[in-house]
């Protein structure tokens, strides 16, 4: 139990000044601008927007600067900011088939319609430090090749689905999705609610859980049906207009994972799916999310629930790094009263034990 304390105002104020000083660092080094963070640390911005659950590159860059690069602290700052804003409503669901893709790959079909487009990826780098980056200098622009930007990219899922080899996703006709930030999470949760939880969830936590399924703790034999990253328009129906308009474009990464399913008494064997969606370019997150989404469907698909990644309560209750970090870090706050009472108890118990041992020793000596 935490009991409030008073005092320490001056020390706290000075600590904040010291944080600001450390944030600025050596004054001989130029200060970072938000544009620099946005443009040159873009993947950090993407992670903060995804787990902060708020798409705004400039705000995420500001949060990263304020948090001195501590991304979980930055996510906390962005989450706190969003609570100060009114909600205008919910968008129309994104149509990622219309994505202007920078990258689209499938590891299930070599000759996927639309082609394998690597885009900007670290997948085929050698992970050798590039010392040329240590020096400033002009960098060449990326090469181009003829392309058709207006062409919609066919979905790998649709190809498999046509033959009945892949389960179709849950029906579109669900109206507006329920929202975790509005209604408390009740278990068992629907798949849309689970996905919202995972979308906000900590990348590291989901990565470890996804990895655990691959190592056998709830294995579901995954293949990357498709990963795509690029720009999609967001449609919204303003109440004053009554018709949908596009209010902007955002970058998203999606992963449609294809998994084995042995079939059941009623359903012939077919592939099942897990889905991941993240703001910006965040493939590791989208893949981990898709693995965990699929693992959490164990009960629905009649699989034994034996592992942490399949345990809905365990996963959904511990995925949020703002909550987790808050509860772990609150241990640093003064717990003096709490600890004092435990001290009293432990001293009393020790005294009792010592007395008993003394008496036993006396009795032994008397014999």
């Amino acid at each position: 139990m935490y009991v409030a304390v008073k005092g320490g105002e001056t020390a706290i104020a000075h600590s904040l000044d010291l944080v600001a000083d450390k944030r600025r660092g050596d004054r001989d080094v130029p200060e970072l601008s938000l544009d620099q963070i946005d443009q040159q640390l873009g993947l950090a911005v993407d992670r903060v927007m995804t787990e902060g659950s708020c798409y705004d590159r400039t705000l995420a860059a500001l949060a990263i600067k304020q948090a001195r690069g501590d991304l979980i602290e930055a996510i906390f700052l962005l989450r706190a900011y969003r609570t100060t804003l009114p909600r205008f409503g919910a968008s129309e669901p994104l149509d990622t088939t219309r994505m202007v893709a920078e990258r689209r790959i499938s590891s299930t079909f070599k000759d996927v319609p639309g082609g394998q487009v690597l885009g900007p990826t670290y997948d085929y780098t050698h992970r050798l430090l590039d010392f040329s980056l240590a020096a400033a200098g002009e960098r060449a622009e990326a090469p181009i090749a003829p392309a058709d930007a207006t062409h919609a990219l066919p979905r790998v899922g649709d190809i498999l689905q046509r033959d009945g080899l892949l389960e179709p996703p849950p029906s579109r006709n669900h109206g507006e999705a329920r929202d975790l930030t509005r209604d408390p999470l009740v278990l068992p949760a629907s798949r849309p609610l689970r996905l919202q939880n995972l979308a906000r969830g900590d990348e590291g936590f989901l990565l470890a859980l996804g990895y655990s399924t691959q190592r056998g703790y709830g294995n579901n034999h995954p293949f990357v049906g498709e990963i795509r990253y690029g720009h999609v328009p967001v449609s919204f129906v303003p109440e004053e207009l009554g018709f949908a308009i596009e209010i902007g474009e955002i970058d998203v990464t999606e992963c449609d994972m294809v998994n084995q399913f042995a079939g059941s008494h009623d359903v012939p064997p077919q592939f099942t799916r897990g889905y991941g969606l993240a703001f910006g370019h965040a493939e590791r997150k989208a893949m981990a999310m898709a693995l965990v989404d699929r693992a959490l469907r164990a009960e629905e698909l009649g699989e034994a629930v034996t592992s942490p990644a399949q345990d809905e309560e365990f996963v959904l209750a511990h995925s949020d790094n703002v909550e987790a970090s808050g509860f772990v870090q609150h241990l640093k706050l003064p717990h003096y009263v709490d600890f004092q009472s435990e001290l009293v108890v432990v001293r009393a118990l020790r005294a009792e034990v010592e007395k008993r041992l003394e008496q036993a020793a006396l009795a032994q000596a008397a014999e």
Partner: protein
Amino acid sequence: MPSSPSIERRRRWLSILAKAPGARLASLWQALGPTPAYLVLRRPEIGLVMVQGRISGTGAPFCAGEMTVTRAAVRLDSGEMGFGYVRGRDARHAEIVAAIDALGQRPEWDEKLEAAIVTPLAHEAEARHRLIAARAAATRVDFFTVAREAGA
């Protein structure tokens, strides 16, 4: 009632204007010269829109996360109302979109705005998308599966 462009036309304008870079829209609006005064009905207001995704891209919707959005509303002296909704927190962007939405409902401004602002922005957006697609296309790959030869 002033004659108003069809909903389809208004939808197209509002979408192109919202997706344009705010600074670029502001400079085109500035270059237009004198425009009729308008009353700001709703000062630019920053809020959130919950972005929905679909399971596996095509299935049931779910809440993917929010985005910041700025909205504004204006009214011309002649009565037309205009609304601006734009991603992000650029107040000027939202207000200019609202002003153009209102002004575009006036027949004498319609073509001028289309030619001076909407069409150029649409072309620029296409060019941006073409560049993205062209850079991506340069990374298109043909993987070869290395199959065992017969008898090997």
